[in-house]
């Protein structure tokens, strides 16, 4: 069991290294560099930058060095916790991302939790009562949820919330608290603003997980061990919850891995619409401006989140499935 964990951890580290390389390559893919974009920006507003000035800027940012050197420097600093300076914001990347990362995590976890809390019971219900009216209703709703673009739903919910409930929609904080230092009042304010974005983000994932849970459970319900459990005299409820649901959770846990980054990156448009101070919109800006260090850091974080998500689902699988736990002992 320990070996399994260690092996997973080692693989995760190697994967992270590859992600860092890929990140670096991806950022350098578009033609031109930050200085080109900066000059073009200035030119658009009427001012010009001399060639000497441009070269000086390139030297300052280390853009004149070979790619490998640039990568090594970047990685070295990243490992020390220095993610470089955002060229657009002219502030350290850590500072720019700062709170946004934690807020992103809070929103993502809220959405993930909501996804599970809704998808699990409905999935179980839909499988156990296959082809019942309830199953059809949930299936229909699920497909609608899957088909409606998140940002559209966000707009509709915002409108409804504002028009009929008089809610303060948009953002994660009331105006009074946006710049305020952390306090219990600010946390409470955050909690009040959380449900709407969490619900919007959760919906598409929920529809998907309902389908997965339903399909898994339908497979499991036909297995002989379910009949065994019934034949013992257990109630139907206990039979289903203890045996097939446990088995159906297996692929469910695997899905955590890809849900995690999806909740962050898939939320860019929604975050823009809802005005959420999360990482998504920042990534978009950084990519548009070719703000290499900022974009690189965010892409790297997304990659690492995927790896962490995979690790979490591995641990979950281990907990759910003794065959994995006892691997190598059989």
């Amino acid at each position, binding site marked *: 069991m320990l070996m399994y964990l260690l092996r997973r951890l080692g693989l995760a580290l190697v994967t992270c290294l590859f992600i860092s390389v890929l990140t670096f390559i991806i950022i350098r893919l578009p033609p031109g560099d930050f200085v080109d974009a900066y000059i073009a920006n200035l030119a658009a507003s009427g001012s010009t930058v001399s060639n000497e000035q441009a070269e000086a800027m390139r030297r300052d940012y280390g853009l004149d060095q070979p790619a490998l050197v640039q990568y090594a420097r970047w990685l070295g600093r990243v490992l020390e916790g220095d993610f470089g300076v955002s060229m657009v914001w002219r502030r350290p990347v850590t500072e720019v991302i700062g709170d946004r990362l934690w807020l992103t995590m809070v929103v993502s976890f809220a959405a993930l939790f909501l996804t599970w809390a809704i998808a699990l019971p409905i999935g179980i219900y839909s499988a156990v009562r296959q082809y019942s009216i309830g199953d059809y209703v949930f299936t229909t709703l699920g497909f609608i949820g899957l088909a409606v673009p998140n940002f559209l739903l966000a707009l509709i919910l915002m409108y409804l919330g504002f028009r009929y409930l008089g809610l303060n929609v948009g953002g994660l904080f009331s105006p009074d608290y946006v710049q305020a230092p952390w306090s219990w009042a600010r946390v409470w304010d955050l909690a009040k603003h959380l449900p709407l974005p969490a619900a919007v983000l959760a919906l598409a994932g929920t529809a998907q997980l309902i389908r997965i849970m339903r399909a898994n459970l339908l497979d499991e319900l*036909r*297995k*002989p*061990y379910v*009949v*065994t*459990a*019934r*034949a*013992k*005299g*257990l*109630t*139907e409820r206990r039979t289903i919850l*203890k*045996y097939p649901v*446990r*088995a159906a959770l297996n692929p469910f846990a695997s899905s955590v891995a890809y849900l995690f980054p999806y909740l962050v990156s898939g939320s860019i448009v929604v975050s823009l619409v809802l005005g959420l101070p999360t990482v998504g919109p920042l990534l978009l800006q950084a990519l548009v401006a070719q703000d290499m260090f900022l974009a690189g850091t965010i892409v790297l974080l997304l990659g690492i989140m995927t790896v962490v998500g995979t690790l979490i689902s591995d641990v979950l699988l281990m907990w*759910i*499935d*003794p*065959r994995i736990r*006892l691997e190598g002992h*059989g």
Partner: protein
Amino acid sequence: MRPTPMAEPIALAVRDLAVRFEMEQGNVHALEGVSFDLRAGRTLGIVGESGCGKSVTARSILRIIDRPGRITGGRILLDPGTPQEVDLAALDPESARMRAVRGGRVGLIFQEPMTALSVHYTVGNQIIEAVRQHSDISKAEARNRAIELLREVGIPRPETRIDAYPFELSGGLRQRVGIAMALAGDPDILIADEPTTALDVTTQAQILALLRRLQAEKRIALMLITHDMGVIAEMTDEVAVMYLGRVVEYAPVAALFAAPRHPYTRALLRAVPSVLAAPRQRLATIGGAVPHPGARPAGCAFHPRCAEVIPGRCTAEMPPAIPPGIAGASCFLDVPA
């Protein structure tokens, strides 16, 4: 020679049991008027090809037929003729009374020892659960009882095996665990649904010997479902031959092998491989396949495959069912003794 069947009390009487699966493609009559008795300390063999309704019969008794199947007629009498007589077919499958019968009075042993146990829980967890379902004892006591059960079914080192997961055990051991689980509620009726089909020959013999020993010790009424005529010959006292949801022949085992009365039984017996056969001799088969129960032939359901069909009669009329407990065949050719 065993005592005559009449001396033993009937533990379970199935009468005219009918089960139907109502589906969009039409109704499937899985069972059509099945009757038989299970007697304490005796073994009834149920034999027939796949799809003849053997397993549906077993699950009907326990009231665990899968949707959309449902009992549409007949009775399943537990302790018939006693003051405690109860018709299981009339109970709500989810009622406390029915659940007490399930695993408490009637134990079920499965065909697939690989898939009949959940891989997610230890052997002990699954047996203790069954023990505690049918008696009010503490966890520690239930654990001791589970170890006792594992020992009883011949599992070596039960104190450690109880904490093993099913996938850590061999097929034979798993099947023994399955039997221990079926015995957990101390049932007096056991239904074994093809208990040895998935096992190798040596293990088969051991499991059959175990079942015989347990039956003798506990005077269990055993219903043994199989398609293996060898198992029938070795294990049973009486045999019911099933075809398309009906009992077509019922006889004491010796009589069945010596003088089979239904053409289907004769065909089944001809299809048994024999060591006395000449080399390279083709194995006899029954022509055709079992028709889909939804497309049951008119008249006697066996007539399209029967070598001795009486044209005009077998194709039009259904031969009468055999009265329970009386040897005979449901065939126009069978002359009542």
